[in-house]
């Protein structure tokens, strides 16, 4: 599953915008990824402006 580095995250929501599985929610300032819905497509990793998301290699 993709992991969020909360020390880097700027809570902009770009990652939510590309998640076809609706696995990501931005709840106020906190990006929450639903482990059951994440398909490891890593699209969110690409779009993050701050490199705050780490995909599984």
């Amino acid at each position, binding site marked *: 599953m993709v992991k969020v580095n909360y020390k880097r995250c700027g809570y*902009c929501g*770009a990652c939510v*915008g*590309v998640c076809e599985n609706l696995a990501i929610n*931005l709840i*106020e300032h906190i990006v929450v990824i639903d482990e059951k819905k994440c398909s490891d497509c890593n699209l969110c990793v690409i*779009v993050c402006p701050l490199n705050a998301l780490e995909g599984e290699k």
Partner: protein
Amino acid sequence: MRELMDSYDVVVVGAGPGGSMASYASAKNGVKTLLIEKSQEIGEPVRCAEAIPSIEEFGIKPSPEFVRNIIKGGILFSPSGKKVVVTQGKAQGFVVERKIFDKYLAVRAGRAGAKIAVKSTVVGLERDGDYWNVIVEFLGEEYVVKTKIVIAADGVESNVAEYAGLKAKKKPLDICSCAEYEMTNVELFDKNMMEFYFGNDVAKGGYAWIFPKGETANVGLGVRDKKKKAIDYLEEFIENSLASDKLKNATPVEFKVGGAPVSGPIEKTYADGILVVGDAAGQISPLTGGGIYLAMDCGLMAGEVASKSIKSNNWSEDVLKEYEKLWKEKHYEYLLNHLKYRKILEKLSDDELDALAEALGDNLDGIDLKKFVKRIITKKPSLLKYFKDLI
């Protein structure tokens, strides 16, 4: 919150400019309206460069309360530093303090009669006959709010449109990843001109900007790049670019990040009991990333159509499709043209961008598209292959 323990005709999700305008129009027409905002502070965090071409046409005075600067035009910089000036039409406008402007618009909706729920997150939508049950979380408690119509104005991270079965998700390169420092002590070419910097090393798939904001300026950029991150481009822009000299004494007072959906509008912006507005609907220029004005205008239309349909007691998609007809009449061509221009620009190498700037001359004023293309192909026939489809 007592606002969440009631039923409504219209529930608007997201208190950005689009959602607040939709709520304003709906409430003003006497329809029972709830505006739901997930943050505890409306307008925060700011995610954009804060420029808007027009506010007076909405009957809103450009008050110093939120207007930080009046913009007369823009200066475009090619990779080698060739300048092209634009001063007319949509290049004019204002730079606003979004956190104050957004709140002003929400207050305006509230004063028109809309109820507002803050720190409230919509986590689901359930169809219940001709109604929606909107599932909302507030302080860890779950509330079910019944409504006839939902207006999804929940931005780039829209899940609400998807909950209702509409397609609103984007591909990664359809979103411009933006990073920005608001800085003070920025040296400007002109305190009333926006600066735009182009180039594949400056901001691949997008551009860098300096938007003067009075005592500060928004210094940022948007990129579409699978390898290098917006933040890395930004540090590079500040340290080592055409603008570095003018930024050497500058220091940040705010940091902003955002994702601008620049692939054009989504396929369908209405269905039974739902309308989609603003960034969620892709109502944002694919060329400039400007979306405040479009969201406000389309939000207004959504609020009008929603309230009319409530009064006629029919909020099926047959009636609500009027919304898409209205906004497409006014903005569709503009959006598709900007998408077309962006797709041309992103193909150009840095040398070709320089050649384009040379061909355009110093000033773009009083020039229509035909003249624009003619100027390019007379002066730089090598660029013909990119621009021939425009005429």
